[in-house]
């Protein structure tokens, strides 16, 4: 029996190496992928501890320790699931456009200009704050220090210069670091500043009504499990809003019209979770999928090696049977070999998985710019799952592949063959072939070694399917983002321009007179309201018109044509039991929409993968709906002819001429793309590059290794036949061609099927997967050029690798080999 193991080992060296490598890969990927996916339940809890971010932040618009917040804090303390609660002052500054234009503003001055209309200042040096955030990416620079949330890094950088202009004075500072606060990360108005600066603004607040002191009550719950914590956040948040309502009601009863109403609101981690969890989950799921695919390839390779070994060793196996060994004993000897190999490799895989986990998590963190990813730790269960998967795969495959041992009889030993008479069929008779001889012989070896052929086709098919899938995703994330933009429900104009003038119209007129101008309209008119008289909140965006939109939002139904029509996020519609054709009323906010109540008919669905938008409707009668102060600085979306889009400098030049100014006071100047950047697209883009590169490399490596193994094995098993071919007059290049042709044919079949199927199933598969993670209907553009590239490149790679691997044919000397006795 030892001889079988030895001979198997000798012939399978390359095979063992590859199997081992794949086992290591599979185990490693499974551990990391599962740890990520299983770790999601506690990831935000850990992230909170890594960043000292609150679970719930309640904003109370009154002075520190005022009556409402005192009442709220005692309500919070009555709960039995509170870990920690603390309140913290915040200075809230409105920066209106005043008479002298540009009197007071806050500008981040790198890249896209962003000037803030309102800003919340928090004191980073407040030592009493139990929720003082941990700062990362710290740098030093000149001027006052300001700390931003990670979201800022999508368009800006740590170290960016910052200007605060107040009462004619300019104060310069810089972005000194990043803080992670899951309740504030997607909001652009909360900035931590150093004590000196904070105290200065605080002093100004004594005399300036546009600066008010407010407070934030931060809460930590005891729940480690994310779902439980989320439930508590929502429940507690709603309860506190009731406390505020009761308080205000009491005040009205007591003081009537003189009552001082105190506003309140809350942020929980939900928005942050919505925007990050699906991304992390997809990454984890991708790794698990990859691990399983590698395990399938392991199965195919082992299956092939064992089957061909059984065929080669019929004589020896027959002798063992004659000596009295049973089938099971012989099968177990094969299992023993693979158990030892995979055992060793599993240990390596586990060690690698554990040691690489932090590195990998850091890579995700960098790619995603999500510091909370660091909170993902190793999951012990994942180690067992990985081990179980490999053990199951290997024992199943070895048992299946050795089933032929049953058919080996002592007689097989004499005839060196199985007891079969018709197992070979001549599918490609030479006499019928019109192809060149070498190609025909290549084709023959495809049909005569069915096991090998099936394995190669399946592996190539899987790999090209994945490549095709990844390239479709890549194309839609990186090259042509139309589909993603459609899904994000974000319009993508050439520019979004906001100006900070008392009367901006002449400036906008100047842009309209530029060459190539197409159209413009108000941008980002976000408004929220309650559905009917319920307390279900709906938020969405108004458009002045739908006919010039570049983004094709609607994928079911149609766009609104009349003022009472609305399109709605399908996921939101489903949650609320709405369908196309239904109608409902929205009671809008009294601050932003002058308490308008409108009845709408649903005419279509769109989707909003980042959950930033529930509805879209016409902007009806602007003056009535929007406060005048908002309108003054409201940015507009500009559309130009495709090949006549002006640059920032060209637009600035035109604007400067309007009133012969040195500087243009932009409130915002964004390209459509930069705005999408805010939608995490940059993150996805970075990931797309990495994933695409890794996939192409892995595909090339897997296919190459497989070929190395197969061709080495083939040269070993068929060296006698090749020696005869040589004696008959076949040259080394002839035989190399035969080997390469066989592999290329299999490669073409595999990559053709895999490439096309992969391209076609991408959108349906993502849609199916998306329904679990909350994304909706995918309609990715299929880049057929890429697919054809894959279908052409894989066989080409196969041809090159096969030719390289077949070079040792040169060394086959007929005179030496034919001397060896069978």
């Amino acid at each position: 029996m030892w001889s079988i193991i030895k001979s198997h080992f000798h012939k399978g060296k390359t095979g063992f190496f590859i199997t081992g490598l794949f086992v290591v890969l599979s185990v490693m990927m499974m551990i990391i992928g599962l740890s990520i996916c299983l770790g999601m339940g506690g990831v935000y809890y850990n992230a909170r501890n890594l960043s000292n971010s609150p679970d719930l932040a309640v904003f109370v618009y009154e002075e520190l320790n005022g009556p409402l917040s005192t009442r709220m804090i005692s309500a919070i303390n009555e709960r039995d699931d509170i870990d920690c609660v603390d309140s913290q002052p915040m200075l809230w500054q409105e920066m209106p456009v005043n008479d002298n234009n540009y009197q007071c503003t806050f500008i981040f001055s790198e890249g896209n200009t962003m000037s803030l209309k309102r800003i919340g200042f928090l004191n980073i040096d407040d030592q009493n704050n139990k929720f003082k955030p941990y700062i990362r990416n710290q740098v030093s620079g000149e001027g006052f220090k300001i700390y931003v949330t990670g979201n800022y890094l999508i368009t800006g950088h740590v170290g960016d210069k910052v200007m605060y202009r107040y009462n004619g004075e300019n104060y310069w500072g810089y972005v000194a670091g990043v803080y992670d606060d899951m309740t504030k990360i997607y909001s652009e108005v909360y900035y931590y500043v150093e004590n000196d600066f904070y105290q200065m603004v605080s002093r100004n607040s004594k005399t300036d009504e546009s600066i008010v002191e407010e407070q934030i009550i931060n809460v930590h719950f005891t729940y480690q499990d994310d779902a439980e914590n989320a439930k508590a956040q929502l429940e507690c948040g709603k309860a506190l809003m009731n406390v505020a309502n009761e308080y205000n009601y009491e005040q009205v009863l007591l003081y009537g019209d003189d009552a001082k109403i105190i506003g309140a609101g809350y942020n929980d981690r939900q928005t942050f979770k919505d925007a990050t969890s699906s991304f992390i989950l997809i990454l984890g799921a991708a790794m698990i999928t990859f691990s399983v695919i590698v395990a399938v390839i392991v199965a195919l390779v082992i299956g092939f090696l064992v089957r061909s070994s059984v065929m080669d060793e019929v004589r020896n196996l027959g002798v063992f049977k004659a000596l009295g060994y049973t089938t099971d004993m012989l099968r177990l000897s094969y299992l023993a070999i693979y158990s030892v190999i995979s055992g060793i490799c599993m240990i390596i895989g586990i060690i690698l998985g554990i040691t690489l986990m932090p590195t990998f998590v850091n890579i995700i963190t960098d790619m995603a710019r999500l510091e909370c990813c660091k909170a993902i730790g190793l999951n012990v269960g994942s180690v067992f799952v990985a081990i179980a998967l490999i053990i199951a795969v290997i024992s199943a495959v070895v048992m299946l592949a050795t089933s032929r041992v049953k058919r080996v009889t002592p007689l097989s030993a004499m005839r060196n063959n199985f007891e079969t008479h018709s197992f070979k069929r001549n599918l490609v008779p030479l006499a019928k072939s019109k192809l060149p001889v070498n190609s025909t012989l290549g084709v023959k070896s495809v049909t005569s070694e069915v096991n090998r052929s099936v394995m190669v086709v399946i592996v190539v098919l899987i790999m090209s399917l994945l490549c095709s899938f990844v390239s479709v995703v890549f194309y839609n994330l990186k090259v042509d983002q139309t589909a993603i933009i459609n899904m994000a429900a974000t319009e993508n104009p050439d520019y979004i321009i906001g100006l900070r003038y008392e009367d901006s119209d002449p400036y906008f007129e100047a842009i309209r007179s530029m060459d190539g101008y197409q159209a413009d309209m108000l941008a980002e008119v976000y408004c929220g309201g309650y559905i009917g008289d319920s307390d279900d909140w709906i938020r969405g965006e108004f458009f002045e018109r739908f006919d010039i939109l570049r983004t094709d939002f609607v994928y079911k139904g149609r766009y609104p044509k009349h003022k009472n029509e609305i399109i709605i996020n399908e996921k939101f519609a489903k949650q609320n039991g709405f369908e196309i054709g239904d109608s409902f009323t929205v009671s809008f906010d009294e601050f932003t929409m002058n308490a308008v109540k409108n009845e709408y008919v649903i005419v279509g669905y769109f989707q909003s993968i980042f959950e930033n938008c529930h509805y879209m409707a016409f902007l009806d009668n602007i003056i009535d709906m929007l406060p005048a102060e908002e309108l003054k600085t409201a940015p507009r979306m500009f559309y130009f002819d495709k090949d006549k889009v002006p640059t920032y400098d060209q637009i600035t030049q035109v604007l400067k001429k309007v009133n012969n100014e040195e500087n243009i006071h932009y409130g915002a100047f964004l390209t459509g793309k930069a705005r999408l950047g805010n939608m995490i697209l940059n993150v996805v883009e970075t990931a797309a590059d990495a994933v695409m590169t890794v996939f192409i490399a892995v595909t090339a490596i897997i296919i190459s290794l497989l070929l190395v193994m197969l061709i080495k094995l083939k040269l070993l098993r068929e060296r006698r036949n090749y020696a005869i071919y040589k004696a008959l007059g076949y040259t080394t290049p002839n035989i190399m061609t035969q080997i390469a042709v066989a592999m290329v044919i299999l490669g073409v079949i595999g990559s053709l099927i895999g490439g096309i199927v992969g391209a076609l199933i991408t959108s349906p598969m993502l849609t199916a997967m998306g329904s679990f993670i909350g994304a909706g209907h995918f309609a990715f553009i299929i880049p057929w050029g890429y697919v054809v590239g894959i279908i052409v490149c894989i066989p080409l790679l196969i041809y090159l690798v096969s030719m390289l691997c077949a070079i040792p044919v040169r060394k086959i000397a007929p005179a030496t080999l034919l001397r060896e006795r069978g």
Partner: protein
Amino acid sequence: MENKEFENIIVTEGLCKSFSVGGVQQHVLNNLDLQIADGDFTVIMGNSGSGKSTLLYALSGMDKPTLGNIVFAGEKISEYSNDRLAKFRRNNCGFIFQEVFLNDNMSVMDNVLASGYLSGLARKDVYKKACEYFDLVGIPCEMYKKFPSQMSGGELQRVGLVRAIINNPKVIFADEPTGALNSANSIAVLDLMNKFHREGKNIVMVTHDIKSAVRGNRVLYLKDGVILNEITLGEYDKDNEKQRLETLKVFLDEMGW
């Protein structure tokens, strides 16, 4: 008889072949000069290990000599590269081995065609020729589709014969073609070889077996890498077999066989 292009189909000058095994040089062929006349059926005999196969491989261009020249049909093949030798063999050499060495993954017809298609003739003609030869050696049409593992040793050697002559080679080389056959099968194969010889084929055959050796018209005796002696027997005929056997026995006895 065909027109003789060359007086000697193969000529060797100072042919040497040595192998180094573990750094030790073993000289198998020593400065061997040999002429094989066109039209001969040459038999090479000698003790086991005397270098018969080595000589056969060198003459047929399957192996390159360590030193010396081989001129085959006017071409100095000892200077050829491996691939050029392979192309040379296509139309000049046919081979028969003790173990037939057919490719187990191909039907017997395909085994023959895989060789025949290298001749450069039209494929239809090659196929026709293959059928003729199969008929000649007594392999019926039904067997064309069989795989080597489904045939007897005698049948296989006859397929080997067809493969050897399919390209109409100038010389057929045979290394103990009857070594693995019983006497009836041996006689059939040898009869065919004599038939090919009568039709103009050159044959160089290595054998241990006197009954096979008498089929040739020239017997060389190899010892220590040189041709110790040789004997010419004239054309073979069934009737003169006994007498030839006697003569050969005497010769071999002298050689110390």
